[in-house]
């Protein structure tokens, strides 16, 4: 019995440590919210100009905003853009690193595409693709996939030369080199790409909803702005941040499981 106790305490202590790690940031956030609430109360700012965080929170209980349906619409677009960017980004990076000619031809095109302001292109996407979850996924992907490609490509290309030479001298096939050396080396980079992708997919989906949409948190923000229902804008922003934060957290958690050697708590936030 006594020998089991440390094993039971282990995970508990890890959780405690993790929780303790986030205490300062949570305190700062709560402090900012409190300062905001007090400032709005003290200066009696009109609610339609700047609502208090409490007023925004209360809006979430109002059924006429159909929070669940709108949240799900945005969630689908975000997850779609995230998944598509991840797959497209990794595949493109592999193709680029596999062949030098492809690197020289595809990479400049990607860089050129990345310099285009996607927010200016978004209205054209509506004309070409219509509106709805799918076009929003496409808009989100155009914004989010580039950091995936670059990070993955760097990870694949920068495997240690000594390691590469060693496995080549052991007559490893190109595929083996890729799977045993290049890919594990790229994992931390891929996760960095995924973390960027997580936040950029959220931005992309909202940009899409701003341009044309029937529902979604972006649509609620637009409607709230026109009808001066400012608390609903802040409530939507809160949900969007939460969505981005949770997606980011999931990437970090998966990274800890899949590539624990790459995970460093101090860079995870």
């Amino acid at each position, binding site marked *: 019995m006594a020998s089991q106790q440390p094993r039971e305490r282990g995970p508990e202590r890890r959780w405690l440590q993790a929780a303790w790690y986030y205490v300062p940031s949570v305190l700062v956030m709560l402090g900012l919210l409190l300062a905001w609430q007090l400032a709005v109360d003290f200066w009696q700012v009109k609610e*339609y100009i700047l609502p208090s965080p409490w007023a925004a929170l209360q809006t979430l209980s109002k059924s006429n905003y159909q929070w669940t349906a709108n949240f799900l619409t945005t969630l689908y677009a975000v997850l779609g853009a995230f998944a598509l960017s991840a797959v497209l980004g990794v595949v493109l990076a592999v193709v680029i690193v596999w062949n030098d000619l492809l690197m020289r031809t595809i990479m400049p095109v990607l860089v050129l595409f990345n310099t285009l302001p996607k927010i200016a292109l978004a*209205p054209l996407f509506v004309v070409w693709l219509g509106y709805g979850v799918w076009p929003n996924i496409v808009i989100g992907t155009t914004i989010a996939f580039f950091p995936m490609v670059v990070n993955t490509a760097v990870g694949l290309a920068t495997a240690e030369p000594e390691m590469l030479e060693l496995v080549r001298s052991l007559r490893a096939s190109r595929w083996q080199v890729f799977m045993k050396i290049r890919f594990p080396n790229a994992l931390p980079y891929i996760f960095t790409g995924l973390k960027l992708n997580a936040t950029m997919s959220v931005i992309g989906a909202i940009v899409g909803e701003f341009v044309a949409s029937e529902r979604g948190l972006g*649509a609620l923000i637009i*409607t709230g702005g026109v009808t001066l229902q400012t608390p609903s804008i802040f409530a939507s922003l809160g949900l969007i941040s939460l969505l981005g934060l949770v997606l980011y957290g999931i990437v970090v958690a998966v990274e800890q499981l899949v590539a624990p050697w790459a995970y460093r708590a101090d860079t995870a936030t």
Partner: protein
Amino acid sequence: MLRLLAAFTLAIALPALAQDKFTLQLNWFQLADHSPIYIALKKGYYKQENIDLTVLRGSGSADSAKKIDLKQGDLGISDAPTVITAISKGADLRIVAVVFDKAGNNVFFKKSANIRGPQDLVGKKIAVPPADSHRVLWPAFAAINKLDPNGVTLVNVKPEGKQAIVAAGEVDASFDLYTSYAIWEKVLGKGNVGHLLWADYGLPIYGHTYFVNTELEKRNPKLIERFLRATHKGWRDAQANPREAIDAMAAVVPGLDAEALFNTTPQIMDLCITERSRKHGIGWIERDLMQRTIDITFAQNKPDRPVKVDDVFTNAYSSKIMPAK
């Protein structure tokens, strides 16, 4: 001594000669209905009233209402329902004149869509530019025409994308002001534009209005009157010579399609110059119609606090400038 006295007198007199700085916050970027302001500028009507005018382009009625409430401008142009909504939310605003005596709220579609009356809109997808009041007014318009407000699918669309989304067939129609007729004709082709003006189907309410912060009324009420007089002289002149007004605007505002804007002037004058403005002067406000506008604004959503019609508007600064003809 005498010279000193003269200098002293001049020092006192100078501020009186200095022009009043005045900032006008438009509802949107410059369109044909703003051209009267530019002909008034060109002809020096504001200078005559001792006003040094700055015109700021806008980004929607809600935004200009906010800016005037925050005193970031002296007088704004916004949809009446938006100003009324802002007042119900505690904004210190008052409507001092109307731009249009008849609201230009309207629905555009391809003629081939076979829409002959409001009842034909049921089951259709309609693009609604979020930065105008159609979304707020639609339930009232539907109710007057005995339609289910949820019988159409409203699609949020960026204002500049509404013609393209109809042309591409993504939606069947778009709510847009009647004053944009020429732009629709440009996109859909001459003779292909169908439209229903809501005012023709039982929705006579006020559309665009001029409004101020109530603080300006206390500080300098004469300034409001002077601004409206100069502006309405501009409207009178624009009515007589719309081409000159559009050219005056295009000369100082870059990037305008003067021809397309000129083509919308007949519709604009239709909405501004009516029997009422011929009787009372341009911009004059009728109490009953303002009350009706308030009622329709709050037909679906109760106001945050009660709004009284006599607090919402005043004719105290009426310019009494009569239309050209």
